[in-house]
C-alpha cells in the first residue's frame, strides 16, 4: 500500500512502486489533465509540481514522491483563477491544448521562483514542446501572468 498526496488529498494505492507518477495520476486517480507526450522527459507534457518544483511525471516513479506534495493542473487553483490560467485565457494561448497543462505548470513554477522573468529566463525555463507552435503566446502569457500577480 502506497500513500500519495495529490492536490492536498491523501490517496492509499495498491500500485507497483516503479510505476511512473504520470500513469498513477491518469489511470489510478483519473486525474487526466496531466498528459503523456513522450515518456522520456523530453517534451514536458506531463509536468506537475512535486513540493513546488516542476517535475516530469513520466519518468518519476511513484516511490520517488512518497511523503511529498504533488500538485497537478487540476489542483493549481480551485477555479482556474491562477494568474497563469487567467493570462492563458486572456491571450488565447492554447490551440489543440494538449501540451498546455504541462506548459501552465512549468510557467507557474517559473513565476513562483522568478516573479518577473525576462525573455531569456523564459527561454531557459520553458523547454516544453508545443507542436501547434503557441510559443509566442506562451511567452506573452507569462509576462501577462507576472503582471496580474503584481497588480493583485
Amino acid at each position, binding site marked *: 500500500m502506497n500513500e500519495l498526496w495529490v492536490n492536498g488529498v491523501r490517496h492509499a494505492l495498491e500500485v507497483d512502486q516503479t*510505476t511512473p507518477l504520470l500513469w498513477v495520476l491518469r489511470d*489510478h486517480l483519473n486525474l487526466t489533465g496531466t498528459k503523456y507526450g513522450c515518456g522520456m522527459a523530453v517534451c514536458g507534457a506531463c509536468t506537475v509540481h512535486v513540493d513546488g518544483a516542476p517535475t516530469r511525471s513520466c519518468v518519476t516513479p511513484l516511490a520517488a514522491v512518497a511523503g511529498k506534495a504533488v500538485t497537478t493542473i487540476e489542483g493549481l487553483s480551485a477555479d482556474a483563477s491562477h494568474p497563469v490560467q487567467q493570462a492563458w485565457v486572456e491571450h488565447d494561448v492554447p*490551440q489543440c491544448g494538449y501540451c498546455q497543462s504541462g506548459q501552465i505548470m512549468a510557467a507557474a513554477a517559473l513565476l513562483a521562483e522568478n516573479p518577473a522573468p525576462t525573455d531569456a529566463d523564459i527561454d531557459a525555463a520553458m*523547454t516544453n514542446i508545443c507542436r*501547434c*507552435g503557441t510559443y509566442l503566446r506562451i511567452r506573452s502569457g507569462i509576462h501577462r501572468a507576472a503582471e496580474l500577480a503584481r*497588480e493583485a
Partner: protein
Amino acid sequence: MNRRHFLRASATSAGGLLLSFHLPALATARPFEAAGEGEEINAWLTIAADDAITIRVAQSEMGEGVFTSLPMIVADELGADWSNVRAEYADPNRSLREDGVYQRMGTGGSRAVRHSLPYLLAAGANARERLLLAAARRWGVPAGECKAANSVVTHNDKTLRFGQLAAAAAAVTVEEAPLKPAAERTLIGTSQRRLEVPAKVDGSAAFSMDVRLPGMVYAAVKHCPVIGGTVKSVDAAALASAPGAPQVVKLGHAVAVVADSYWQAQSAVDALPVAWDNGPGAGGDSQAWRAEFAAALDEPGVVAAEQGDVGAAFAAAESTIEADYFAPYLAHACMEPLNCTVHVQAHRADIWTGMQNPEAAMAVGAEVTGLPAEAIYPHNCFLGGGFGRRLNTDWIREALVIGQQVERPVQLIWSRAEDTRQGFFRPMSALRFKAGFDADGKPIGYANHSVTHSILAGVRPDAVATGIDPSSVEGLANLPYAIANTQVSHTIRNTHLTTWFWRSVGATQNAFARECFIDEMAAHAGQDPFDFRRALLGAEHGDTLRVLAMLEEKSDWGRALPPGRGQGMAVFEAFGSVAGQVAEVSVSQSGDVKVERVVCVLDCGNVVNPLTVEEQIEGGVVYGLSAALFGKITVADGAVAESNFHDYPVMRMTDMPVVETHLALAGGDKWGGVGEPGLPPAAPAVCNAIWRATGKRVRSLPIADLDLSWT
C-alpha cells in the same frame, strides 16, 4: 517575492480579476457528450430556457479553431448573443441516419470554413426565421416586422428572449430563410477568443486519451519494426506471471497487450518476445533511396505541364543554371500520441478518438465488426494535434480488433516510439530545376522534374493512373511565373513506407524547392527577388502581387544587415490562399542558424475570426520551421530510426523567431484556407535568407544536417 508571497498574491488577484475579466461559464470540457440542453431548433443548434445556445460543429477541433469560427458563422446569421454560445460536436451517426444532415464531416485541406460557410449560414438563418415566426404568431404581427439580435426578438417595444421562444420555434416550419446582407453581420470578421480555451487551462478538456469508462482496460501495441512486415510468432506464455492479467492480441502486423492499466500493458508488450517476418521492406535504406531518387531524375518523367519548346529555349539561351533539391520523409509527431477507446458490443460499437474523418471511422467500424454502419457510434474528442495524421483510421481499426476480443471498453495507446515510427509519413522527394536566360537576364526556359513517393497511390490508385500524383506536383505543374518555354515532369517512386497527407501536403517540399530555385534564378539575373517575381506574374496573379507589395513594406525588405545575417523571401499559393513570407536569420561563423523574425502576409480572401487566423499562421510557421531546421525520418534495415523528440527534434521556445502576421485580403467572394497556407513559404524564406547571410545555398533539408559555417 518568495513563493508564499506569490501564492497569496495569486489568491488575491483571482478575486480582483473576477470583476474585470469574464471567464466564459459554458466551456466545453467534453465535446462529445451532447449536453445541448433545451429545444433543438434545427440539427445545428439548441436553445435553452436561459438563452444558452449550443451550436454543433461537424469539423474536428485540432487547434485550428473550428469550435469558435464555425459557431460564429451560425451565431451571426442567427442574431445570437455570442457571450452565451457554446459548441459541441455534431453526431456522425445521426448524420448517417438523417441523410447527411451534417454534410461532409472530414476535416482536411484547410476547407472547414470555406466549404461549410453556405450551409452554416443557412442553418443560422433557418433558426432565426423560426424564432421570428414564433414571436410573430405570439404577438399576431407579420414576421417580416420582427427583428432578431443579441438573442432577443423585437417588434416595436415588444421583446421576447430566444429562450422564451425556443419551444415554439422548434415546432414551426419555415419555407424560406433568406441570408442577411453581409453588411448586417456583426460577428464574422471580428476577433473572438476560442470558446473551449477555459477547458484547456484547467485540465478538464477531454482528449480521447482522457476517456474513462466503467470497467475499461488498457492496451499497448508493438508493430513490426519494418512497415509491411508481420508477426511470425509470439511467446504469450512469457507474460503468464506479469501483473495486470495481460492478454495478448495478435493483429497480423502487430501485437497488442491488454491489461488493467496502461503502464502494465506497455511494460508487458515491451517485454513480450515476438518474432517478426519483416516482409518486402526488410532491406530498405533511406540513403540508398535518396541515391535512387536522384538517379531517377536523370530519366525522363511523365510530363505534367508543358508550354513552348524548352529544349530549343535552352539551346538558344545565353546562360543556364541547374540545381537539385531534396526533401526527406517526415513524421506528423502530433503532441498527443495516437490512441482510441472502443466498446464493441453485439448490437453496437462505440469509438472515442480524436479523428479528422468520423465517416471513415464508421466505415472501418462496420467493416471490422460486421455491424451495419448505423450501429457504429464515433464520439469525436478534442484532437491533440491532427496535421493530417488523424485523417487516417489505422489505429482505430486496431482498437476495434482488440475491442472485439475483450468484451469490455478498451483504450489503446500508442507509445511515442510507435507513433513516430509507424508511418504515414510526408513523402520523400528529389527535385531538379533548370533555367535558361537571354542576354538581358530574362528567363526564357524553365524545366523541372520531381521524383516523389506518391500519397494517392496508396489511397486512390486510379488518381495516379497517368503516372502523376496531382498532390505531388502542387505548385510545380501550376507554376505561377510566366516563362515562355516550360516543361514540368514527374516520376512516382515508392518505397515500402506508407505516406500520407501532412500539413499542406505536396506544397511543403515543392514550395521549398521551387521558391529557392526562383531565388537562385533572381540572383543569376542580378535582380531583387521581389522585382524578379513581379516581372513574371501576370495580372491574373493580382492577389499574389498585392501580397508581395505588403510583404516588401512590412518586412523592411532590403534593410542593411551585418555579416552573418540575412533576409529571404518566398511566396506560395495553395488551398485557395496566397501566403508570402520574409525570414530574417542569423548564422554564426560556425554555422548555427537562428531564425530571428518571420513576417507573413496572407490573402485568404475573407476571414471569420482574425485571431485564430493569426494563430494558425504562427502555428504553420513553427510547424514549417521544425521541418526545415530539424525534420527527417530515416530508415535502416527497413526500420525507421527516429523514435521520439530526442532524435526527431522540433522547435522549442528558445528557437522561436518573432512572427508577424498581416492580412492582404482580396474580399469579394474569395474564401481561402488558413490552416495550411502559412507553412509552405517558411522553409524557402529561411533558406534564401541563409544564402544572403552566408553565401551558401540550402538545397537539402533538414538545415541542421548542413555545414553552414562561413568566414
